[in-house]
C-alpha cells in the first residue's frame, strides 16, 4: 500500500470537518502533523453569527448568508455539524415560509451543534418552526396530529424499524396542546382539558405527558444512541459502522450524556477515520464551496445559490423531512453536468499559469493530493495540447474541479 502523505491526510480531514479545504489551508495545517491537525480541528470555535435580513420570506438572503458562513476560511467542525443537524432535524422553508421563526430554530442547531442532543431536541420540538413544519401547530388532544410524533421517532431518534403505531398515537397525545402565535411568532401551550392531555400515557416503555417527557423517553430508548451515532459516523467516515462498532459508538454516546462534541472527537480519533478517504460523494454544498474557493469566486453568493438549486441541495430547502439522501446518486450524470457547467467558468489562476508544472499547481490549488493515474493522464493530455499559459491554466483548473477526486470526499 502506498504511503499516504500528510497533505493527503489533512485534506481528507478538512473535506470531512469543513466545507473546504480552501486554497492554502492544507499547507498550513500539515505543519502540525495529522494528530495535531485533528486536535486543532476539535479545538476550533464556532463562527460569530450576524443575523441576516429576515424580513422578506420570498428572499433567499438567509441562504446566501449561510453559504457565506460555509465559505468563511474560519468555518470548521462546528459549521459542519450545524449542517449535519440541518439535514437530520429538518425544517423546510418551502413549507414554513417564515424566516423569522426558522431563524431561531437554526440558532438552536448552531447552539447545540457540538452539544447536548437532548437539549437541542427538546427546544426544537416546541420551536415555532418545527410546530409549523411537522404540524404540531394546533394539534390538540381531541384532534391530535401524528406527524411530529412519528418523525420524532422514525427519523430523529430511534429509526424506522423501531416505530410502532401505539407509540405514534400516544406520542401525539402527549405532545398536543401547542400552537404558534401568528403575530408574535412564538409557541404557546394551552393548558386546558380540551387542548392537552390530563393524564400520562405509555410511550416507549415509560409513562409520559408533555413534550419534555416525550423527548426524554425517546432519548432514553436504547435504540436512540445507536441510530443517531451511526448516522454521525456515516457522515464523518463515509461508511456504515460494523455492528460491533455501532454498539461501541452507542455506548460511548449514551455514557457521555448524548454529547455530540464528545462523540465527534471519538470518531475523528478512530484510526478508521483516516483510512476512509474519497469513499463517498462530496455533497453539493461541500463541492460548491470548495470549487468556488479554488476558482477564486467565493463572494459570488447568488452563483452558489443557483448552482446548488441546480444540484438539488439548497440550504433551508431539504427535499423531505428525511433530509438529503446519501449515496452514489450525487455522482449521477445530471450532477456531473451541473459540476461541468460551473467548472467551465474557470478562469486562469495566476499561480497556476506561471508555474513550471501547471498540472501540479492546479492540483495544489484544489487541494488534491491523492490523484489517480487516469485523472493525471487526462490532465497531462490537456497540458500537452495547449501552449497558451493562461488558457491552459483555466482548463487545468476546470478539469481538476470536474475530476472524480474532487467529486468525492
Amino acid at each position, binding site marked *: 500500500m502506498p504511503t499516504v502523505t500528510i497533505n493527503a491526510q489533512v485534506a481528507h480531514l478538512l473535506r470531512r470537518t469543513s466545507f473546504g479545504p480552501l486554497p492554502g489551508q492544507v499547507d498550513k495545517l500539515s505543519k502540525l502533523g495529522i494528530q495535531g491537525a485533528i486536535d486543532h480541528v476539535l479545538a476550533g470555535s464556532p463562527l460569530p453569527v450576524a443575523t441576516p435580513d429576515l424580513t422578506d420570506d*420570498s428572499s*433567499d438572503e438567509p441562504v446566501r448568508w449561510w453559504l457565506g458562513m460555509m465559505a468563511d476560511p474560519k468555518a470548521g467542525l462546528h459549521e459542519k455539524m450545524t449542517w449535519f443537524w440541518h439535514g437530520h432535524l429538518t425544517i*423546510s*422553508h*418551502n*413549507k414554513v*415560509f417564515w424566516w423569522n421563526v426558522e431563524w431561531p430554530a437554526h440558532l438552536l442547531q448552531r447552539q447545540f451543534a457540538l452539544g447536548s442532543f437532548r437539549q437541542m431536541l427538546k427546544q426544537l420540538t416546541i420551536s415555532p418552526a418545527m410546530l409549523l413544519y411537522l*404540524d404540531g401547530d394546533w394539534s390538540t388532544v381531541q384532534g391530535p396530529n401524528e406527524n411530529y410524533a412519528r418523525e420524532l421517532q*422514525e*427519523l430523529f431518534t430511534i429509526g*424506522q424499524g423501531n416505530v410502532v403505531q401505539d407509540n405514534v398515537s400516544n406520542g401525539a397525545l402527549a405532545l398536543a396542546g401547542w400552537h404558534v402565535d401568528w403575530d408574535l411568532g412564538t409557541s404557546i401551550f394551552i393548558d386546558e382539558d380540551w387542548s392537552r392531555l390530563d393524564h400520562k400515557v405509555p410511550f416507549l416503555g415509560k409513562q409520559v405527558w408533555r413534550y419534555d417527557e416525550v423527548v426524554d423517553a425517546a432519548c432514553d430508548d436504547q435504540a436512540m444512541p445507536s441510530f443517531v451515532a451511526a448516522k454521525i459516523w456515516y457522515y464523518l467516515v463515509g461508511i456504515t459502522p460494523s455492528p460491533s462498532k455501532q454498539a461501541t459508538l452507542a455506548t460511548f454516546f449514551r455514557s457521555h450524556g448524548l454529547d455530540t462534541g464528545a462523540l465527534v472527537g471519538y470518531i475523528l480519533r478512530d484510526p478508521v477515520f483516516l483510512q476512509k478517504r*474519497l*469513499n*463517498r*460523494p462530496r455533497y453539493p454544498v461541500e463541492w460548491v464551496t470548495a470549487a468556488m474557493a479554488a476558482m477564486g469566486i467565493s463572494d459570488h453568493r447568488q452563483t452558489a445559490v*443557483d448552482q446548488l*438549486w*441546480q*444540484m*438539488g441541495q439548497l440550504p433551508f*430547502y431539504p*427535499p*423531505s*423531512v*428525511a433530509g438529503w*439522501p446519501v*449515496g*452514489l*446518486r450525487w*455522482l*449521477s*450524470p*445530471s*450532477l*456531473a*453536468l451541473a459540476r*461541468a*457547467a460551473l467548472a*467551465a467558468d474557470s478562469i486562469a489562476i495566476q499561480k497556476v499559469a506561471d508555474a513550471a508544472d501547471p498540472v501540479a499547481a492546479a492540483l495544489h490549488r484544489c487541494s488534491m493530493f491523492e490523484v*489517480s493515474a*487516469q485523472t493525471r*493522464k*487526462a*490532465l497531462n*493530455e*490537456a497540458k500537452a*495540447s*495547449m501552449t*497558451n499559459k493562461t*488558457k*491552459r491554466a*483555466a*482548463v487545468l483548473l*476546470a*478539469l481538476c474541479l*470536474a*475530476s*472524480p477526486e474532487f*467529486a*468525492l470526499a
Partner: protein
Amino acid sequence: MKIIDRRQFLQMGLAAGAGVAAATTFGPGLARAGNRGPAVGRLPVRARITAAPIAKRRMVVLDMAGGNDGLSCFPPKGVAGNTYRTLRPRTFIPEADMLDLTSWGSSTVGMHPKLTNIHARGAAVIQGVGVVKPDLSHFEMLRRWWAGDQDSLHNSATGFLGRICDVIGDPTAPAVGLSLGYGPSPSLNSANVVTMSMDPYSDGSFPTFDDINMHRAWVAAWKTMAERQSTETVPFCSARDGAAYAKRFSDLATSLPNPGGGYPSTDLGYQLMLAARICAQDNGIRIVHIPVFEDFDTHDDHLARHAAVLQDIDTAVEAFLTDLALRGIQDEVLLVSTSEFGRRVPDNESNGLDHGAGSFVMLMGPINPGLYGAYPDLSSLDGDDNLVATVHMNDYYATLAEGWFGVPASQVLSGGTPLSGIFTS
C-alpha cells in the same frame, strides 16, 4: 405556492436571455437516422388513435404543482350543479359557458370553456383522484405524488416515475427519464437506469469554453477522465460513469430533430416543443416529466387566473399533439397530468380557493375519451370541506404503470388497481 415562487424567481433570470438563445440554438437539427422531423403537409384526420406496441410507448407527464382545481376543469351540471353554485358563489362557472360533454357520454358534467382544443380532441378524464388521508401541505402532497407514496408510509429514495424507468428502461441508454425543468425531479429518482434533467431553454449542449482550443482540450480530457477503470473503487467508477453519461446525454440533446411549429411562446410551449423532439427520436427516453410553471395556487381571484392558466395549457397541448401527429408518433406518446391536490370546494372571501384534496386528471393520446371513476359527491365533503377521493392515487398510478407500460403495479407501488378501458388497443 412557495416552490413555484423559487422556480419563477430563477426562471425570470434564465428566461430573460434564454428566449433569445433558444431561438438561435434551435436552428437546423441534425438529420439523423431514427429522427422523425415534422412532415410538411396536411394534418392527418383526427381519429381514434390505436396505441403503439408497449415497447415503443413513451409518456409525457404534466406536473401541475401548486394544486390544480379539477372541479373548475370539469364542473357538475344539473342537481350537483346547484350544490356547486351554492358552495362557490364567487367562483362558479355558469352552465351556459361550459363545454358540452355529451359526445364523451356525459350530460351531468361540463368542461371549462378555455379547454376548447382538448375538448375537440377528447381526453380520458379520471374523476376524484386523491389519497385516503389528505394533507393540506403542498410540500407533503408533492412528496407523496413524486414518491408514489399515497399513504405517506415510506421514505422512499426512488420516485414513482423513476421506478417505472427502472423496470422498462435500457440501463445503457443516455437517459430513460428526463425532467424539463431546473434541476432533477424527485419523481424520476431511479435505482438502475439514468434519469436526467434539462433546462428547457438550453440546447442541452455540453458546458464548455468559448475558445476553440480550450474547448478541444477540455472535452478530450473530460472523455479521458470519464473512462471507467476496473481497478478503482465503486465511488470512482460511479463518478467516471456519471461523467461519461453526462457527455452522452449532451450529445443526444444536440442531435434532436428540428423543433415543430405552432407552439405558444410560454414556458409550457417551449417545454412541450422540446418534449416532442425528444419523443421523435429512438434515444431510450421513455418518460418526460414537465414541471408546469403556471401558477395553480389560486387562493384569490381564482376565475380569471385559472382561466388564463388553462388557456395556456390548452394551446400548448394542442400544438404538441399536432406536432406528434405530423411526426407520425401520436400512437406512441401518452400525455398525462398530475397535481398534488385539488382545491377547497367552498370558495373564500378573496374570490379564491384554498388547498383541497380530490381532483381530476387528464390523459390524452391513444385513449378512449370519456369520464372514468365516479364523480366526487359535492354533498358529502370531508372534514375540511374538500372532495373525498373516489379514485386513489395508487389506482391512477397503477393505470399508467400497467395500462400503458405493462408494468405490474406491485412492482412500482404498494397497492393500487388499474382502471380499465382507458387505452386504445
